[in-house]
């Protein structure tokens, strides 16, 4: 009897151990540690001796730079999220769709800069550059869907993913063949150089243009998706493409439209990116593409507002994060760790919200 009791006791103890949510506890402890590192780092940075501390102006610059950069990333991220929503695939060639739009606009901006049209008609020329880039990116996106992805529509998931990576390399090297390996200067109207003072804050004019354009673009997209018939069919296909096709929605057409919209947005992002950094090159799509994909996952892939939010958050994290957290610990060259920092946040978000910030909190069943 005594032996049996011991065994029972041991069994009960094991049961207790097994019942404890270890996984949850480890995650909570981990996140508390990371939060503590972040808070202490921020505190240390903010309480540095006055001569080493960042000034308010510097913080303002970090924030505005981060917002502007994040807004552009968000715009590209929308392309990933829209396609994912409909097709459940990651279009890794989206960064190259963006790059082609930038090159399309580059040729016009270059010619107009030489002729003086850019400076004499800044508004008209910027509008035309946007249209050119949007059309070029849209064209590339539609061709990509037709040639690379449609034939693989019913293939296993990994097949279109690998195809997308291949398409990305193909497009980047095609651009290198056509346009050369050198980076080129992108003309910016003289009126956009310098700053504007808005509500007492001095802001770079280009950043104002970037933010306003992105807000308009995202608003129009949201209205399009929620109010128009085409937008509703897009949502229907995203919800269930088989049922949608049974209901009379032409799924192929909706998919093409989705790619086209992603391309249009990438075109807008391309012009904004090019006027911000004043240069274009055949490799320019890679980094923003990866950043935008990260932003889409961060915000909740498949969610439109999630992509926009993810982009802005990513921009802010990369711009403020290293300065705010790492400077306090006396880490030199803190900005080289900005990607490590971003992915740390991404991992944390995915641990607690596998679907991303605004995605479904439940992991999706496939």
């Amino acid at each position: 009897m005594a032996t049996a009791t011991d065994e029972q006791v041991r069994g009960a103890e094991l049961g207790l151990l097994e019942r404890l949510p270890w996984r949850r506890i480890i995650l909570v402890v981990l996140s508390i540690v990371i939060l503590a590192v972040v808070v202490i780092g921020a505190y240390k940075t903010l309480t540095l001796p006055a001569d080493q501390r960042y000034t308010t102006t510097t913080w303002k610059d970090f924030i505005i730079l981060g917002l502007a950069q994040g807004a552009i990333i968000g715009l590209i991220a929308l392309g990933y999220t829209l396609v994912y929503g409909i097709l459940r695939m990651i279009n890794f060639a989206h960064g190259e769709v963006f790059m082609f739009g930038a090159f399309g606009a580059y040729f016009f901006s270059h010619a107009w800069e030489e002729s003086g049209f850019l400076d004499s008609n800044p508004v008209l020329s910027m509008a035309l550059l946007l249209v050119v880039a949007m059309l070029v990116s849209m064209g590339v996106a539609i061709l990509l869907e037709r040639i690379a992805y449609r034939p693989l529509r019913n293939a296993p998931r990994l097949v279109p993913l690998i195809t997308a990576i291949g398409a990305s390399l193909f497009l980047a090297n095609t651009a290198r063949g056509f346009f050369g390996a050198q980076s080129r200067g992108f003309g910016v109207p003289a009126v956009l150089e310098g700053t504007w003072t808005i509500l007492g804050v001095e802001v770079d004019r280009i950043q104002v243009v970037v933010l306003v354009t992105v807000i308009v673009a995202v608003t129009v997209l949201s209205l399009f998706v929620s109010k128009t018939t085409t937008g509703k069919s897009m949502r229907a296909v995203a919800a269930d493409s088989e049922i949608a096709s049974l209901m009379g929605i032409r799924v192929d057409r909706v998919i093409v439209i989705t790619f086209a919209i992603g391309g249009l947005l990438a075109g807008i992002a391309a012009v904004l990116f090019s006027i911000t950094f004043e240069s274009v090159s055949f490799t320019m799509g890679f980094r923003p593409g990866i950043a935008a994909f990260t932003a889409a996952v961060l915000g909740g892939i498949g969610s439109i507002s999630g992509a926009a939010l993810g982009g802005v958050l990513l921009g802010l994290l990369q711009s403020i994060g290293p300065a705010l957290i790492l400077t306090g610990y006396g880490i030199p060259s803190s900005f080289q760790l900005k990607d490590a920092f971003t992915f740390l946040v991404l991992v944390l978000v995915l641990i607690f919200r596998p679907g991303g910030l605004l995605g479904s909190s439940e992991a999706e069943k496939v």
Partner: protein
Amino acid sequence: MKNRKYFTVLALLGALSLVAAACGDDGGGETGATGGTSATGGAVDCAADEFGCVEIAAGDPIQLASLLSITGDTAFLGTDSNHGIELAIDYLDNSFDATPGQLLGHDVELTQEDDGCSAEGGQAGATAIAANPDVVAVIGTSCSSAALGVADTILGDKGMILISPSNTNPGLTSEEAHQPFYLRTAHNDKIQGAIVADFVFNELKVDSAATINDESPYADGLAAAFRDNFEALGGTITDTEQVSSADTDLGPVFTNIAATDPGVVYGPNFNPVCALSYTQGSDILAKGTVQIGSDGCLESSFLDTVGAPVKDFDYFASSPDVTAFQGGAFYKDEYLPAYTDQFGEPTSVFNAHAFDASNILFDAIEATAVDDGSGNLTISRTALKDALFATSGYEGVTGTITCTPLGDCATDVTIGVFEYDHWPVEGGVDPTDPVFSETKTLADVI
């Protein structure tokens, strides 16, 4: 749950690609020259040579390979160096007539491999070359990253000479890392860093500077050389920043630098980072802050990208001073016109170093190859190496070339500092003379 795994894999993939991108680009470009005439003769004892001999039958070409950056952002550098080698082959008959000359009665065949301006590229290219036992020697690499511990080791293990026209990272010829079959006609960045520090402190009279460099051994080594020399002169380093060569958004980094208020920002990188630093830095730094780049920056694509100089912000780049190349008459009147005729304007200055590297190699081959009387050549790999390292007092287009036991052949280097946009490359605005020029030897800076 399946979906979640899918994202974890994708997130990892994304992270890996960023790491790959960060590790991707680097390299260096610099100049040096070597020339040598050491002669050996008589029969060759190939069995005694640990690395054996190359046998070239009568009528067969002497095979050389180049391992240079011929794709990607730094393609301007490798393509240009390849042209320098082609000109040297052309000049084997002592005339630039666009027809290849012969060496010891044999044609010279050049195989071009790509170093990818990265360690991975250097590994792939060097492995491909090392697999061909008929290759006598290799001109390369363009980028220090492709050579350091990669191509220099892979080729050295086979006893194949690697002469770089544009590696400048000090590590390559350091006691710790030098590989026995590695030489360079490019300058050692210890010299370039010292001269730029001199320019900033004594010529610009600025005593505070920040550095910003990418992850490449080239940029990292040069920034460190600058900091050491600048501080030795009495200057203050206010900030050291690192970026990735794939970065486009340098705003936050420059905001960070601006907070330390340096008089000069030194960014010895490659384009597009150099050009992006100039345009973005000028938006953020205090008016009048001078930016300085290196020979990796000084090339046509910077001019294409930036256009006219930014108002209130000067930019300078250092580079081997072409105007000071010895044998100036030959360089100006024969070499440069021949280059321009055959290939258009040079996209960098390192073609001259490739030309010199090829010529000291040809001299060493002439000195060591043994002809059996019927046109069959035998070249001992170790003898060829010894002949190259014995190069002394060779008058190349880039200067007098004398190789040290650690492989630095450009021991006496003139570096010029060129104000943007008066640069001695295609698209530069006349006059393209340097605003500052100084000559130092390795002995001065080590």
